[in-house]
């Protein structure tokens, strides 16, 4: 697992003094960390190495597990501070994202999934703001696609498990109380929106928010720097203003990071709840 192939983009790094180079999607293709080797394949240069987002993914999983394991291990009636924080986090996901959305009947099955998912995404998002890491793991679209696909598989699987394949398709595509001729239009539409589109919107929402947020931050950071270093004397104050805005936007991003983790998980829970629902 330590070595993974990774495509290295052969873009030109912005040259100093040649005018401002705005940040671009290439900034998200980080070179491998540590030792790496490269090889030629299909006429491309491929790098063999571990990239920063990969390390972050592992770090997030490790931190989430260690923190919650440590806080849940004591099992004291009167919780310590650590246990209290862990219980509050767990209880938040369990009750507001699990029980309140899926319903108290079946929710317990999905709590481990929702719980792990929420804090995994949250921490990976927060990495965007945490000093010295400052890169959102989920601005790498591949990372998000995996989780969204998993969510899609889970809600469809539990739906099919509960209603059978035909019953599940009927539940998802035929809203009750609709006149028969309308179904001709509705069935493809419902199928599209409930089965096909959901994983993409789920993935793109998280990915795009993280990607755009980080791009915005880079723009303000680099732009401010450029204005301060290269700009005329009159422009330099604008550079200061840019950095102040950078700070303000960082706080906005903190909110977005939490919200996106929350939305990803609550939508996954909603999909599950609609799949295990008895009626529409």
């Amino acid at each position, binding site marked *: *697992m330590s070595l*993974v*192939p*990774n*495509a290295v*983009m*052969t*873009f030109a790094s912005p040259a100093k003094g040649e005018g401002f180079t705005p940040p*671009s*999607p*290439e900034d*998200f*293709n980080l070179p491998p960390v540590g030792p790496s080797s490269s090889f030629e394949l*299909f006429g*491309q240069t491929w790098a063999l190495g571990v990239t920063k*987002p*990969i390390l972050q*993914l*592992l770090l997030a*999983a490790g931190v*989430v*597990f260690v923190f*919650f*394991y440590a806080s*849940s*291990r004591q*099992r*004291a*009636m009167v*919780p310590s501070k650590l*246990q209290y924080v*862990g*219980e509050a986090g*767990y*209880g938040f996901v*369990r009750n507001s994202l699990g029980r309140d959305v899926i319903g108290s009947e079946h929710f317990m099955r999905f*709590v*481990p*999934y929702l*719980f*792990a*998912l929420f804090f*995994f995404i949250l921490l990976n998002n927060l990495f965007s703001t945490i000093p010295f890491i400052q890169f959102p793991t989920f*601005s*790498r*679209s*591949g*990372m*998000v*696609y*995996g*989780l969204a*696909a*998993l969510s899609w598989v889970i809600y469809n699987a539990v739906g099919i498990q509960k209603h059978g394949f035909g019953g599940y398709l009927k539940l998802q595509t035929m809203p009750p109380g609709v006149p028969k001729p309308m179904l001709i239009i509705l069935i493809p539409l419902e199928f599209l929106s409930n089965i096909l589109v959901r994983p993409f919107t789920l993935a*793109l929402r998280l*990915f795009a928010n993280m*990607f755009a947020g980080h791009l915005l931050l880079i723009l303000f950071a680099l732009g401010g720097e450029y204005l301060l270093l290269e700009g005329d004397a009159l422009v330099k104050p604008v550079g200061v203003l840019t950095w102040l805005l950078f700070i303000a936007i960082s706080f906005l991003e903190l909110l977005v990071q939490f919200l996106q983790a929350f939305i990803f998980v609550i939508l996954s829970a909603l999909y599950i709840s609609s799949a295990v629902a008895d009626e529409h």
Partner: protein
Amino acid sequence: MNMIVLAQEGEHAVNPLLPHLVEIILSLIVFGLLYFAVRKWVVPNFEKTFAERTKAIEGGLNAAETKQAEADKRLEELNQQLSEARHEAARIREDAREQGAAIVAEMRDQAQAESTRIVEHAHTQIEAERQQAVTSLRAEVGTLATSLAGRIVGESLDDDARQSRVVERFLADLETQEQQPASGNGAPR
């Protein structure tokens, strides 16, 4: 992987939407590991803690309820005992008053009887003494009268039998005379 290569062909036109397959697989593996670890070691702990806490709180509440019920029962008992004691006290007071009244009445009766008895006794004694006096007076008066009459008529009336007959007759006359005007008060029997 093909898609990445395609993206690479356009050198600078990197499409961030196109994923690296490795990242998809890796994110699933890492998240999967986290999921299983959390399901095995974290969630059961939290659930057990919650359940135990719920049980402990419920147990505490139940115990408190039991204690409260017991205390209520005890209070009820004490109140009942208190009211019983009050009743008892009232009853005893009532009894005592009645008894006192009875004793006073009895005492009064006894005193009445005693006084009556004393008066009776006195009457009897007086009557007896009076009888005695009458008897002795009669004898004396008879003797005196006889001797006086004898002296007056000169006739000896020493004959005892005659004498006493005369006296008796005289006294009987006297009594009848006395009874006729008065209704026989103080009449000798």
